[in-house]
């Protein structure tokens, strides 16, 4: 199940706020922004690894959501719908910046870099301190996520970070269940490969 399910019984449900937004109530939208900004910011941050740009893109996602709200039929959860918009905002941004040309989400280049050993951390010299190792693993994971294509980033983040079920991911992307599985499979394999040396040391 997705993470945002009814955290507080006293809280106004999303759908009620959405209806008020659709009637033009910007204060209701402010409540939705406060409710989801941390999750949306986490998503943009995980995807692009840059605090100021992630902040701007999260804001842009909310503004795009407000503009699109009149056509939101509430046939999916607000959060799922917002996630879809956020992904599109980030994806457009990445495309505009021509990062593909720069190789940042070009999987073939990533593969090449791994093969050339460019990703290697100092081998055979594991840090004795667990916290340090943990921090290093965190850094490596973030860097590995940033190397995935936006499509693969999206499914892995929706699954592992937001805990969405396949059907919910398929609705958020949107795509078929088969595509969800294929992208998840590929993303995990790719991450496994990118983080191979971390796990080799730990074994």
């Amino acid at each position: 199940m997705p993470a945002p399910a009814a955290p507080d019984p006293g809280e106004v449900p999303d759908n009620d706020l959405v209806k008020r937004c659709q009637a033009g109530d910007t204060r209701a939208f402010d409540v939705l922004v406060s409710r989801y900004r941390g999750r949306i910011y986490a998503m943009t941050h995980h995807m692009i690894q840059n605090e100021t740009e992630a902040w701007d893109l999260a804001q842009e996602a909310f503004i795009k959501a407000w503009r699109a709200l009149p056509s939101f039929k509430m046939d999916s959860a607000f959060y799922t719908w917002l996630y879809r918009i956020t992904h599109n905002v980030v994806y457009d941004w990445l495309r505009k910046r021509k990062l593909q040309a720069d190789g940042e989400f070009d999987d073939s280049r990533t593969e090449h870099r791994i093969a050339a050993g460019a990703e290697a951390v100092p081998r055979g010299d594991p840090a004795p301190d667990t916290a340090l190792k943990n921090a290093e693993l965190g850094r490596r994971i973030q860097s590995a996520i940033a190397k995935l294509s936006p499509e693969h980033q999206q499914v892995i983040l929706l699954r592992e970070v937001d805990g969405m079920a396949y059907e919910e991911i398929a609705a958020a992307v949107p795509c078929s269940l088969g595509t969800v599985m294929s992208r998840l499979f590929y993303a995990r394999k790719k991450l496994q490969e990118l983080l191979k040396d971390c796990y080799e040391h730990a074994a």
Partner: protein
Amino acid sequence: MNTPPEDYELLRWLDGEMNDAEQDAFEARLAADPSLQAEAALMKRLSSDLRSHLPAEMPVPYADFFNSQIQVRLAQDENVQPSPAVSGGWFGWLRLPWLTTAFATAALVLAGLVAWQNSTTAGGDELVHSIYVPKAGVQARSFHSKDARATVLVLDGLEDMPADRKIVGFNISHGEVDEALAATTLFDDHGRAVAVMSKDARNQPLLLTTTNPRG
């Protein structure tokens, strides 16, 4: 993608997407296959590491400002709705979207700041739609100067440039972008490359000069 269905079964098992019968069948297979067990253990570990290192929620820097900036943009949107009278006269001019934005931005950004010079127009930063200052302690204010016919953005609270820093200006006549290298080369009017603007691994600007301007 040529992926054998077994791979998806491991995936579905890990993600709790199997029904009871499918799960029993898969676990029987798992018990009999050490290589599948190893693969499953690695995948489980990867999932667990991803979850522990990628938070689902992160504190938004300047969260109140984040919200208020969104409200400013929404107010701006409201005023962008078709308004047939905006084309003529001062009354129409006053209804232009910038005014709401200017007032809202002014309220957000100018609060607590002293008034600027007499030559400025009240709430006249019509051409500045939003301002974001990432560093705490720095204030930004904008206004329109009628006398200078200019939009002015004043940044206060910035760290001074060190007095011993030799600021040397460039004289650049054009820049050319190389999309493949994601870099812009800057040329002087003799066609000499003076500097290259690129990005570092953190996506921050990286400026490289052909000479050391500080001598």
